């Protein structure tokens, strides 16, 4: 399979008054054409920053992409001029943001916000772009599109706004779609609908999808491969199947066991990962997870593990995962 996007050794730092925050610190991942991958991790682990870095939308200052390559169809996006980069944004790579309530401009109509990208990238006339915007609104399931296109964002519910965001993102048929926690801010009942919508559209258009989430249930259903992020680094990577049933990093094990399950007795306490996510200005020595890790060995606080192939096509940045069998139990 040919990779559409390869992120190599990407590091994005933020310069703050307290010091340099290494939000993304040497991240690797890749997406094949038409493939869906998931980027999983706790809040603040660098998922969003790594995605924004792909589109070079990091506010600078304070942020800065300090190293790495983002190869999109073989071209390093980090080396493009601003002008060339603008032709990629929205047209080749589009993004759905986490916050539908604040991600739409309050003083422009919904129709206008969708049509402006079409005018720009597809050289459509104003009328054609607007007509296409109506079609897209219908496609994402907004009833009475013609009337609703003249409405403003405040007249839409959260779920509806996220549909509008989806319509906007797919309007120019991008090759890659980045969905940054697209369902975090909407009701549970709407979440599944939105994800099904995104899946249906990406399948139809053959669009690759990077799904950023902290919801492991979502990952299992939609992604073929999973990258688990912790403290700005990828700590585990494999097929969704393998990561779920045979996790190779204690952090993933912790994440999986903190998902509530219906098949457990009702009185069981939900297990959590002890401790706090690490300070990204002064990360712990060795493996950044070792202070919270129940399986840590002396080596963990000294040497930082890189991603290693611990099973065929299954990578983990964990010294303990090299021991066979692993001390944690498989999850059925």
């Amino acid at each position, binding site marked *: 399979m040919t990779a559409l996007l390869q992120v190599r050794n990407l590091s994005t730092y933020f310069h703050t008054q307290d010091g340099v925050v290494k939000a993304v610190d040497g991240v690797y991942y890749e997406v094949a054409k038409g493939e869906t991958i998931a980027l999983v991790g706790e809040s603040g682990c660098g998922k969003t920053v790594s995605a924004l870095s792909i*589109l070079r*939308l990091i*506010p600078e200052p304070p942020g800065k992409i300090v190293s790495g390559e983002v190869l999109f169809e073989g071209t390093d996006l980090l080396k493009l001029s601003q002008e060339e980069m*603008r*032709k*990629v*944004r*929205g*047209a080749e790579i*589009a*993004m759905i*943001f986490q*916050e539908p309530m*604040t*991600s*739409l*401009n*309050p*003083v*422009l*109509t919904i129709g206008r916000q969708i049509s*402006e*990208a079409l005018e*720009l*990238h597809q050289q459509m006339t104003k009328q054609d772009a607007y007509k296409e915007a109506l079609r897209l609104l219908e496609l994402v399931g907004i009833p009475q599109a013609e009337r609703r296109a003249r409405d*403003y964002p*405040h007249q839409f519910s959260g779920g509806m706004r996220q549909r509008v*965001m989806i319509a*906007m993102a797919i309007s120019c048929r991008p090759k890659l779609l980045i969905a940054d926690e697209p369902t975090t801010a909407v009701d549970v009942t709407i979440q599944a609908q939105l994800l099904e919508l995104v899946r249906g559209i990406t399948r139809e258009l053959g669009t690759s999808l990077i799904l950023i989430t902290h919801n492991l249930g979502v990952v299992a259903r939609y992604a073929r491969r999973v990258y688990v992020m912790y403290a700005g680094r990828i700590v585990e990577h494999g097929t969704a199947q393998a990561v779920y049933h045979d996790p190779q990093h204690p952090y993933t094990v912790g994440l999986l066991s903190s998902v509530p399950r219906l098949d457990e007795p009702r009185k069981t306490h939900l297990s959590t990962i002890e401790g706090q996510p690490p300070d990204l200005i002064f990360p712990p020595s060795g493996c950044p997870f070792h202070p919270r890790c129940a399986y840590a060995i002396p080596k963990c606080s000294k040497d930082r593990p890189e991603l290693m192939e611990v099973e065929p096509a299954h990578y983990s940045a964990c010294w303990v995962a090299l021991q066979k069998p692993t001390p944690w139990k498989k999850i059925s």
Partner: protein
Amino acid sequence: MHKYLLRRILWLVPVLLAVAFITFSLMHLVPGGPWDREKALAPQVVENLNRKYGLDKPLFVQFGNFLWNALRGDLGVSYSFQDRGVTQILLSGLPKTATLGVIAFFLAILIGIPFGMAAALKQNSAVDYASVFFATIFASIPGFVLGILIMIIFSVVLHLLPTGGWGNVKHLIMPSFALAALPAAYIARITRASMLEVMRQDYVRTARAKGLAERIVLLRHILRNALIPVMTIAGPELAFLISGSFIIENLFSIPGVGRLFVQGVFARDYGLIMGSILFYAFAVAIVNLIVDILYAVVDPRIRYE
């Protein structure tokens, strides 16, 4: 919307009535009267004058007479200007005051907004610091100090502009700048703060993620949102400017409404005081109404039911 407008216009009646009542009461509570002179007039003269102008009647009758005449567009007579009624006097001052006010208003906008924008776009740069510095200076200098300063520079030292009067464009330059300085400083500061606020909104990132050029992001997405708070303060500023400045009009000897009012107060010219105060109240109320309507045009979240 029509209903709202009608209601707002009807509200003008009680507002103006209240203003008239308060002004009338204060005017008569203040010691002294229109006939006080260095050398007191003979009691018989005062009595005759009072009778002539109806000042011998009970106060509520005087107030009632004023209202009745005002309703028909007659604001009464002025004791200092015998040849014309107060309505004519104010109407002769109004064009001057309004011309000056409108010019000063556009100056304030044309100076304030670009400087505020430049400061926000280049935050923490020399441009930013300079803008904030001058905005603070001009917001703190009283109008009469600034007026006298520029008068000294441009009239006394450089002999470029006349110190006062009314007639040609040269007469307008100094007073309009002196009037515009404070609102310009104000508008610049609000523009800067509002731009900085809008620039870090999520929807600006969304606009960039679409691949829009920076110019479009700025004009279509940032500016329209950033100017809403600017409008909030620009409206009252406009009302303030077109209703005339007591100080600047006096300083530059401009025969506008502001100067007439000051003259009226000094002379205890009851008719002129009532007339100019009501004119102010009316101007402020109308401009505020216009601003509120414009609000709904610019910001779709605001709807009047």
